């Protein structure tokens, strides 16, 4: 029997430029207050690490793109890009 092979992709989501980031602003403030006076700005983003079976990275990337568009990313407020973290390897 063939073992399943997985690829691990990371979707990195950031706020669109110009969109307000109250969380980032509050974190910046707090860092300054607790002694990191020089911090100029902190912005917050998130990522999704997606484990998906297959070997064909192009196909997988397109699949992940579709996931972003249908669920993971809010196109009104967020931008994203996809990074490969691990190439095909047996599931962990």
């Amino acid at each position, binding site marked *: 029997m063939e073992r399943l092979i997985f690829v691990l992709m990371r979707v990195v989501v950031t706020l669109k430029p*110009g*969109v*307000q980031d*109250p969380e980032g602003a509050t974190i910046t*403030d707090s860092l300054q207050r607790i002694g990191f006076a020089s911090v100029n700005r902190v912005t917050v983003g998130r990522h999704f690490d997606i484990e998906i079976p297959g070997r064909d990275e192009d196909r997988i990337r397109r699949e992940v793109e579709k996931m972003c568009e249908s669920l993971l990313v*809010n196109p*009104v*407020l967020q931008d994203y890009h996809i990074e490969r973290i691990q190439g095909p390897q047996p599931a962990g």
Partner: protein
Amino acid sequence: MGSEPRMASWEEAGLTAKEYDEICEQLRRPPNALELGMYGLMWSEHCSYKSSLLHLEQLPTEGERVLQGPGENAGIIDLGDGLAAAFRIESHNHPSAVEPVQGAATGVGGILRDILAVGARPIALLDSLRFGNLHDSRVEHLFSGVVSGISQYGNSVGVPTVGGEVYFDDAYADNPLVNVMCVGIMSTEQLTRGTAVGPGNPVYIVGAPTGRDGIHGASLLASRQLGDGDGDMRPAVQVGDPFREKLLIEGCLEMLQSDAVIGLNDLGAAGLTSAASETAARGGTGMDIDIRAVPRRESDMTPYEIMLSESQERMLVIGRRGCEEEIEETFRRWELDAACIGKVTNDEVLSIRDGERILAHIPVQSLTSGAPRYDRPTRPPSDCAAREAGAEEIPIPHDAGDALLQMLSHPNLCSRRSIYRQYDHMVGIDTVLTPGADAAVLRIKGTERGLALVTDGNGMLCRLDPERGAAQTVAESYRNICAVGGEPLAVTNCLNFADPEHPEVMHAFQQVVQGMARACRELNTPVTGGNVSFYNQTLDRGIAPTPVIGMVGSVDDVSRCPGRGFQRPGDAVLMAGQINTAKLAASQYLNIMHGLQEGPVPEVDYDAERRAGELCRRAIMEDAVHSATDISDGGLMIAVSECGAASDEGLGCRLDLTDSRRPDELLFGEGGPRYLLTVPEDQIDTLVCLARETQCPVERIGTVGGSEVQVHVNGELILRASVPSLCRARGEGLT
């Protein structure tokens, strides 16, 4: 004067050629680009009410309890004992359609600041929502997003969301409605008007720095319909910061304890332009603002952007000269920036400067009351006759129990628990009756008294008959307040309509206002404020006319407020009010079971309404009832099922009716004031006396007990359902 290259034509400012000429006339010169942009916002439909004002003048706005009527940031009513309640409702429909979470969240933020602006502490929120059919995944996305936005913002600022309503109808598929009402409480001495008086007094902008977000929100997003190019408007989407809002609330309320502050105003639609010109207009003064002093989020913002930005979580504070230090210090303690951006003047002109350079110079009255007013053409709808069709032809259901379960599990009638569970409805520890009751009740700490609050709207009725539908909406709010023992006091309203330039829409608008005005006059609930939202339309599909009423009532003794749940086996089930007039026409039964939205909408019988309301209220305040509810959407059986489902012990009841009408009409018919009361045996006499005194019919229709709802008509058992099965059905609708 400085010139702004970005907006040159009146069209881009959202104005007409005639309006542009009018501006030139009032200014006695052509406006420059910045001035034109400011006019564009202030004369937009959203800010100027240019299509609606003429009609709104019909509304009754005065009453012994009214301390402040329309025109201010919120209406205020006197509660006695030196206390007053401020309240208002506002829409955030367009922003929520573009980005449901943030659109709804910032809607909550906006209405909170309106209440804060009159000097009241916000104590309650209510949300009135409309969406298309939930089977559509796009609608589902809007619905869950809006609920989560309200929950995120309201919970975080610590103002409980104590009630609201939600309906699903294809009419809202493209244009969801998100109306939020806020209620605040204050001592009567603390009434702060949004006025700028006293030339030389400093003007502050407090809270968030001004950013590029929300530019053109009022003129473009809220004052025209959504079209294919919505994507382009997306940069206007704003992200709410409830944390900063909470600090603004606490900072401003602390500031109002001292007399260092003369006036407050929120920065909402049309941002600084509107806040400055409206406070000056109310005070009969002018204002001189240096945009250099306005804190910004981005360094390269133009004067145009600064004056038109609708960035959230900002307030305009008119201080008293000499108190600058106290003002700045108080806000600093709440971690808020207060920047002095100018001063009050006596020239009745709004001057905008960049340092020494004057950028705009506009008479305040020209921006505000100078806006045009339109008497837009109206035309009754052409398909009126078709809607009068009767309900006679529809088949009588084989199994009334099945029909009941089907009705109960419909999204329009089912339990709203999955929504209000996500709202903190208890913070503030005043919520005596939580969501799920006919109206929310909040106690007023330190007294026995309380406030009863409700929102209500019915687009289906208003589409069938705008005038009667609007009157019925007011009546339904009235019933909800009476059902918890409250005395209805006053009304705020949000009028959600399609394109006002469409004569049929304008006709419905005019009819709705007329119906609402009559009902509010008859029921002695003056209108203290409101909001109009037009252009809820996508291409040629407009929403149903949807006036949403927010009503405030006063409860003399909150310890008497009953729930609607059955309490004790053996209690008599009584019906009070217009007992035998319910019809299937224009009912939820026709809508849900037969897909028919038709039939004449009944006229409100105001005498019957007042009598029944008084009976219910007095029965409650005399502690004669164990439970009370009004019978509304879905008719008698839905009300009875809700009483069973709300019973802590899972009690049912047995009803014995004598009636010759069709059983479905008897069980599910709607119309007229009807209250369902459960009364211990030894209090039945009290009810009989009250019935005589109030001249309101009361009839015993059954007895509480068992764990089933059973209905016997003329001695024959026609419906039987276990209370757990009712609960299950009610729980299914929104999952």
